[in-house]
């Protein structure tokens, strides 16, 4: 992964607040996206990602806070600023009776520069669908068209709100490579996503948002390293062992096992953060045998951003 370019940030905001009645959707949020960087906003449903990104895009007015995009503030010369931005909203339904090429051509007409529509079609792998009406596209093809409409103006900064939701794995990879090429050509990206692998592949830095605040921020690898545990061991205990005093005692004994960094419990699933599987896994097995507990479906995986979120909030990122 190339190192992020330094210099004046592509985007900067401080103390962002947005309230809807009693609900504070964004609650004092600071964010900086450097030039040439891909920055990811992660967070569960309702965390305030879309609200934040729409404030940054100048589509929503914040109740408090300052926003600077490419060195400008909203409200001065917005059209000039918009010419330098590419925007993908979480939900846009394009006119169903325009073709893919016509839709791209329409959006292309709003910008002064930018690649020919044919090039954008090729970038997105939509050449075969150029003449197809939008109403006849599959969900993933529409999603790609929406990203295409963000790219037609040759932007310096790209805002993408869940650009790959609903895509098949192959289309996602294809879109990733589009975004990687965009960034390699010095573009900056702010995106939101629910996919941890996507954030880990694409983003130089990520911020984890919960309840309208940033609860952790940094390069994905740093955040994962901050767990102090490269691996996660997950297992269930047979019911009956779940009574509270029992569970507390088990948690204490699990924490004392060699190499265990932390112990988390979500319902009847337990998670151990471990530095070295070779050391901890046999110890866990011995403990279970001695205590006469039968472990149910033991799995292990390399720690991900998801585990960072779980360890910070005790909840899962995705509503599973």
């Amino acid at each position, binding site marked *: 992964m190339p190192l992020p370019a330094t210099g004046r940030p592509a985007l900067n905001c401080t103390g962002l607040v947005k309230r809807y009645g009693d609900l504070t959707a964004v609650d004092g949020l600071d964010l900086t996206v450097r030039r040439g960087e891909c920055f990811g906003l992660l967070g569960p449903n309702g965390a305030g990602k879309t609200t934040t990104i729409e404030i940054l895009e100048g589509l929503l007015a914040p109740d408090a806070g300052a926003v600077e995009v490419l060195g400008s503030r909203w409200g001065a010369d917005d059209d000039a600023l918009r010419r330098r931005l590419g925007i993908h*909203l979480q939900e*846009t339904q394009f006119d169903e*009776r325009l073709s893919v090429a*016509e839709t791209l051509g329409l959006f292309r007409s*709003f*910008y002064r520069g930018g690649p020919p529509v044919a090039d954008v079609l090729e970038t997105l792998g939509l050449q075969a669908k150029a003449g197809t009406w939008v109403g006849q596209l599959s969900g993933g093809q529409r999603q790609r068209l929406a990203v295409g*409409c963000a790219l037609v*103006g040759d932007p310096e900064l790209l805002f993408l709100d869940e650009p790959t939701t609903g895509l098949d794995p192959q289309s996602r990879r294809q879109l990733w490579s589009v975004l990687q090429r965009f960034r390699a050509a010095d573009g900056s990206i702010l995106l939101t996503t629910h996919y941890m692998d996507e954030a880990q592949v694409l983003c130089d830095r990520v911020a984890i948002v919960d309840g309208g605040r940033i609860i952790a921020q940094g390069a994905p690898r740093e955040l994962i390293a901050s767990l102090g545990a490269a691996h996660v061991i997950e297992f269930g205990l047979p019911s009956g062992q779940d009574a509270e005093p029992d569970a507390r005692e088990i948690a204490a004994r699990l924490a004392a096992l060699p190499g265990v960094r932390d112990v988390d419990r979500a319902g009847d699933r337990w998670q151990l953060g471990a530095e070295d599987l070779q050391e901890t896994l046999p110890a866990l097995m011995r403990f279970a045998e001695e205590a006469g507990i039968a472990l149910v479906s033991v799995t292990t995986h390399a720690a991900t951003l998801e585990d960072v979120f779980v360890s910070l909030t005790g909840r899962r990122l995705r509503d599973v």
Partner: protein
Amino acid sequence: MSDGGPFRHPLAALTLARFRLTIREPEMVFWIFVFPILMALALGIAFQSRGEEPMPVAVRDAPGAAPILAALARAGDLEGVVTPEGDELALLRDGRAHLVVVPGSPPTYRYDPVRPESRLTRLLVDRALAGAAGHAPAWTARTEEVATPGSRYIDWLVPGLLGMNIMGTGMWGLGFGIVMARSRKLLKRMVATPMRRSHFLASLVVSRLAFLGFEMLALLGFAGWVFGVGNEGGPAALVVVALVGALAFGGIGLLTASRARTIEGVSGIMNVVMVPMWICSGVFFAVTNFPEAAQPFIRALPLTALIDALRGVMLNGHALAGVGVELGLLAGWGVVTFTLALRVFRWQ
């Protein structure tokens, strides 16, 4: 390729897109082109002058009916039918007889005075029976039949239909496009580009005016070809009136669509606005049928003004100055609604 040539300009590209969307919507094509033509055809045929058809008269089956039938037959423009007493009212109600004659000395006429054809028939029958009874008329006037183009019901109806069409397509054309884009978050997406908002609104108006041209050609061409409906005032005045009318209803359409979030919502508002005008503004029958007290309100309605101006030009051959009041009223409606709409317009 669709991104080349003159359509690089955002206003041109937006207008082209709006144009494509309109012609790709079969319902739109129906309401714009087919519906007014069908309407003109149906009403034109229903109200066609059929020469001097005899007026049907029911004669009660009673002693003295025979000489009455003979007198009616001699008159030529009346057709007597002997009818049992019990069937009289049904015949009157259905329009199969305009009048019932009850033999007697003098005879009795039964009819509904609200129906103009019944009042007319009463006069004809009276003259025929009086003649038969030996009261010769003082003189017989010469008659001239007037069924020349320019003075028939269809001549009067076509400007009304044109006005109705300008109202309907103006309001739907603008309102639908806007609310559809808003409800699909497309308006928000477009506002997120450097597109000028005025370009978006102007594209709706420009494509609307282009369709107005086609609409007028279709309806007036059809009416001229099939019924010989003409235009006394010449094309220039007609086009100006239609343009002013289309802009006025564009403003009203914009206002009705300025905040609505759903198609159902805007449909409701538009019906509330349009239905009273369909009824009151003299599309199918003269505005003077409504009570005196309602006249000022009806006269102030934009559709009334538009139809009056269209009839002024097409039937009376007025120049623009002759329909200045109506044009002023329409322009007023347009300016006020446009200004208001831009103030309250919701882009997201």
